[in-house]
């Protein structure tokens, strides 16, 4: 079942290339049907589960370790795979108008990208994970270079490819090192391997993994690839990039950093909480300063995923559950928003926040969908985002209570939760400028009503966020056990760390921030 799920997108990509001619609409229809079927398959796996696959594959050159072909069917992996595949129909519909006859190539690339994401999310072996993690860059870069915003796509593609590639190259070295020291590269065997390493090697490997995921998420200050890439990205690819691919970073933290390096994670948790808080606050502030809608979404993702990282590094059950729920919730809401902005851009060729106005009068259904997606993005209770954020914030609060006492807990949670306020600020500002007012700007005047298919795609995402907002146990019911186990080691390690040198978090969020910035600049040079 899992193998089928992994193979399906690649087969679909081939079918796309072979099965449809130059006719963009035929290609779209074909791809849409396949993508709905595959998403349905992923849905079955996510709800019902599937038997994990595990078989020896080959021996890694230069080491004694056997690489396995291993697929995990647990709640986290299955739901992340569902997210990657479920956004497919939305991504295809978001691009149809603007890409026209190039849809065949686009859909093939999209399926390949989804396949790689599924491969990474389901991987039970770290080598396999790395393979798909990196392989995903190729189709993404191709999509970006071929279909991106003509003016900026060269720069953006280069930045995206190099930055994320360089970020993860150290991880490759670390994987090799771990493979040489252990007998197996199965993720479940890694903690034992790591426990046998010297403290220096352990910290170095931890840093290599953490860097790769920090770039991918991205965490401040490794985020500078994000905004240009999101802005240049065709809306359809951005749906998958922001909705699912960026979650590889947070997923990596959850699956490969916290459980594999429990001591180092506990020791350096404050770094990630600090970077997360900085990301949450500054990401939201920068989102407020944007005029380009896609750039605004890029910074809002920075802000939202910062909160996820904070939640993961509190090692509290609530925070870890919240991380999983929030990854799905953010994927749905940001996917819906990218789709809607794609519709806007496809109709008008514009995406400047001030170029519209009074769209509600010309396209009332579009306006309603946009408002609903905006409300999902600001985590209104009843949407999945609310459940995710409450869990994350509670995890943050109780984790810091345990470590730093009441004042620290309130301060950090307040900063982490400020996204609730700033988020409302930029999202409602965009809503107002786009939809309301009485005088349409050029973009607003050219805007026409959303089509049935596009509306349905957004509607499905919104219904999903509503359903998961009321019944998040659909996710946590299957993922909680795994998630809690993943955090157990680090939680225990933190108790030890807290016992010895008291507070392990927060030397103070204010002054540390420029220091980090300067360091990064130095490193980069």
């Amino acid at each position: 079942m899992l193998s089928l799920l992994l193979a399906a997108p690649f087969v679909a990509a081939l079918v796309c290339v072979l099965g449809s001619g130059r006719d963009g609409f035929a290609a779209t229809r074909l791809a849409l049907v396949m993508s709905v079927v595959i998403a349905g398959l992923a849905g079955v796996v996510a709800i019902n589960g599937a038997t994990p696959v595990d078989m020896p594959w080959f021996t890694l050159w230069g080491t004694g370790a056997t690489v396995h072909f291993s697929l995990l069917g647990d709640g986290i992996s299955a739901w992340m795979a569902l997210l990657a595949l479920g956004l497919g129909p939305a991504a295809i519909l978001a691009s149809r108008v603007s890409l026209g006859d190039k849809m065949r190539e686009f859909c093939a690339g999209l399926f390949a990208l989804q396949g790689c994401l599924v491969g990474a999310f389901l991987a039970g072996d770290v080598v396999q994970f790395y393979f798909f993690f990196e392989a995903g860059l190729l189709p993404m870069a191709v999509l970006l270079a071929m279909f991106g915003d003509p003016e900026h796509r060269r720069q953006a593609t280069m930045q995206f490819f190099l930055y994320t590639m360089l970020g993860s190259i150290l991880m490759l070295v670390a994987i090799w090192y771990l493979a040489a020291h252990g007998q197996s590269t199965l993720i479940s065997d890694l903690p034992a391997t790591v426990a046998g390493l010297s403290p220096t090697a352990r910290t170095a490997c931890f840093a290599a993994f953490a860097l790769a995921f920090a770039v991918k998420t991205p965490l401040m200050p490794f985020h500078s690839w994000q905004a240009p890439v999101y802005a240049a990205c065709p809306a359809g690819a951005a749906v998958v990039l922001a909705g699912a691919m960026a979650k590889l970073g947070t997923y990596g933290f959850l699956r490969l950093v916290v459980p594999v390096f429990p001591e180092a994670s506990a020791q350096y948790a404050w770094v990630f909480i600090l970077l997360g808080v900085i990301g949450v606050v500054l990401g939201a502030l920068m989102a407020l300063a944007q005029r380009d809608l896609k750039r605004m979404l890029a910074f809002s993702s920075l802000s939202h995923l910062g909160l996820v990282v904070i939640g993961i590094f509190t090692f509290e059950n609530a925070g870890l559950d919240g991380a999983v729920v929030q990854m799905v919730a953010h994927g749905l809401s940001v996917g819906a928003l990218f789709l809607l902005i794609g519709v806007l851009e496809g109709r008008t060729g514009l995406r400047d926040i001030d170029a519209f106005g009074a769209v509600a009068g010309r396209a009332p259904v579009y306006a309603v969908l946009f408002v609903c997606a905006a409300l999902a993005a600001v985590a209104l209770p009843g949407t999945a985002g609310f459940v995710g954020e409450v869990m994350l914030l509670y995890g943050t609060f109780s984790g810091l209570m345990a470590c730093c006492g009441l004042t620290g807990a309130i301060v950090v949670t307040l900063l982490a939760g400020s996204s609730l306020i700033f988020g409302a600020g930029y999202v409602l500002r965009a809503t107002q400028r786009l939809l309301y007012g009485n005088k349409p700007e050029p973009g607003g005047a050219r805007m026409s009503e959303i089509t049935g298919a596009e509306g349905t795609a957004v509607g499905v995402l919104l219904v999903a966020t509503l359903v998961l907002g009321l019944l998040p146990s659909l996710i946590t019911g299957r993922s909680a056990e795994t998630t809690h186990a993943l955090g157990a080691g680090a939680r225990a390690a933190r108790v030890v760390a807290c016992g010895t040198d008291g507070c392990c978090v927060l030397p103070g969020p204010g002054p540390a921030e420029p220091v980090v910035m300067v360091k990064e600049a130095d490193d980069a040079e």
Partner: protein
Amino acid sequence: MGPSMLSSESVAWLWLIPLLPLLGFVVNGVMALTGARSKAGPSRGFASFIAVLMPALSFALTIAAAIKLAGVRAPLGQAAALDHQGFSWFSLGSIDLHFGLHFDALTSLMLLFVTGIGSLIVLYSSGYMAADRGLARFMSYLNLFLFSMIMLVMGDNILVTFLGWEGVGLCSYLLIGFWHTDHANNDAARKAFIVNRIGDLGFLLGVFALLAAVSSVDAELTLDYVGLAEVFRGNAAALQGSALVTAATVLLFIGCTGKSAQIPLMVWLPDAMAGPTPVSALIHAATMVTSGVFLLARLSDVFVLAPGTMDLITWIALATMLWAAIAALFQWDIKKVLAYSTVSQLGFMFLAAGVGRFDVALFHVFTHAFFKATLFLGAGSVIHELHHEQDMRKMGGLRKVMPVTFASMVFAWWAICGLPGGAGFFSKDLILEYAFEANPVLWVIAVAAAALTAFYMTRLMCYTFWSKPRSDTPVAKIHDPDWRMSAPVFVLGLGSLFSGLLWFGVLDIAFFSEYLAPVVGRSQAQFAALHETAQAVAEGAADDGHHGLGKMIALMAVSVAVAAAAASAAYFKFRSAPNSDSDAPVSGFGAAWTWGFDRVYETCLVKPTMVIGRFVDRVIDQGAIAPAVRSVGGMVDYLGAGYRSFQRGQLRVSLAISVLCLTLILGVVLMDLLLGGVH
């Protein structure tokens, strides 16, 4: 499940109370959406019918539930309740949260006027908005609001309440910005939402601190109200005045200041008058803004353990009531007078809660709902007849041409001034009395605020009804609006006269103090025992009326005399509606008394936020980090000539690479499938 379960009865049809308005929202919403681009628009009659019917049915069910509740026998010291577990929502750490309903005396009281007055206001809206193209959309928002408000008061745990809490904030946003072609309305709506969100974050943090307090006494973590009350009652000695409880209550109170427009988060309410007038009546006077008081009463067992917070509430309430009453003196916009008046009256409610009398606070919530709804709806009728004129200087002399509206408004004016017999007389006087018992200084300030209330309300009545006509619309053309608008106003006007009598009770039941006693009585007694002097405790033994009757009557006489004096002073000053500074714009400095606060927020919070945002974006992000990254990129680019062709976007090369990649991956997959077959 604790022993408290014995005192409650599971009733599934409780769900109908919130779900009916939700159904109304869905039906009207679909109608509004599908009819949005048609020529005629959705059917007005049907939209109104559904929108009025659903809350009215909820009201009927609320009455049925209240009757059923009266039949539930609770063990001594337990609050009788109806409830329904609903379904499992999510787990917060070790807490299993249910999406359930709880219906006790406090809920029933709130629901009776939320659905009752709510239905009347929806009926009124069907007349007020009859000519508006977006009637169905408006009606759907009103129903969604009622759904959220019902969830707020019926939730059996704090997070279900929070769902309603944010839901009413959302509806407030949608309704303030209802006429969204005007950006002034949209700005007001956005401000309301964001200011409320600040309070909401405080609310959430308060909930977390509350949980920390629960775990500090090793009790089982819970967010159910019943469970929380047990924990905080059971561990009162250990938690009394602890830092955790103080932090939790202060944070929760910040949430209340947002929703109930108290200092410092009150800045959104005057601006919120941009919405259609029925909205102001429903949301910004009768229901939503009182949810802060409801929350205090709901968590009274927690709040009484934090004497510092109770003092804070008291003083914030006093400052707010006085400031808002002064602000109301200077308004020319009739709705703004009422808006500031609402803020001021909310101050009275919080004062009562702050001195530990939650039942009195709720009594004032109840009476205020009647008279303020009457005032807003009456003002709405006036505005409607004068073709959207809100400047009181262009009104006057409406007494004769709009008799029904005038009569209702007089009832409500009588009530809000606290003149004997009106509803406000009873509730406000009780508040003043308990304030005096706590500290005579509180009483002095509150009496001053009450006098100002009588003054500005009489000014409003003079300018609108009693003086000579000054309107642009010819007087001959002005008349009472049709029954859909007049009837609700009149019914509510009667309520303003008589709802106060409920304190003394019909049929010998002291409605409020006894009815609410199971819910808030114990915490009140606890608070009194902890905070009064020995002598006061001794007096408290014979509390509520019999002893100290003389003092009570004296206090009442003073406050009534002061109010009457203020009202007559205003009458003689304004009865001919002097037009001294008639050039002052409706929304100038004098009109916007939150201006000071707004400017502080603008300069201290909003501007710096935007400046930091731009600074980080331009200077640090694009100025420092990006070039550094680009230089790395450039270097690699220089080295890798092969990469360049890819980078130029040459399709063939990139396609070749992706095909290569695909082949590789397919190989892997095929291998897996083949091997999988062997297994």
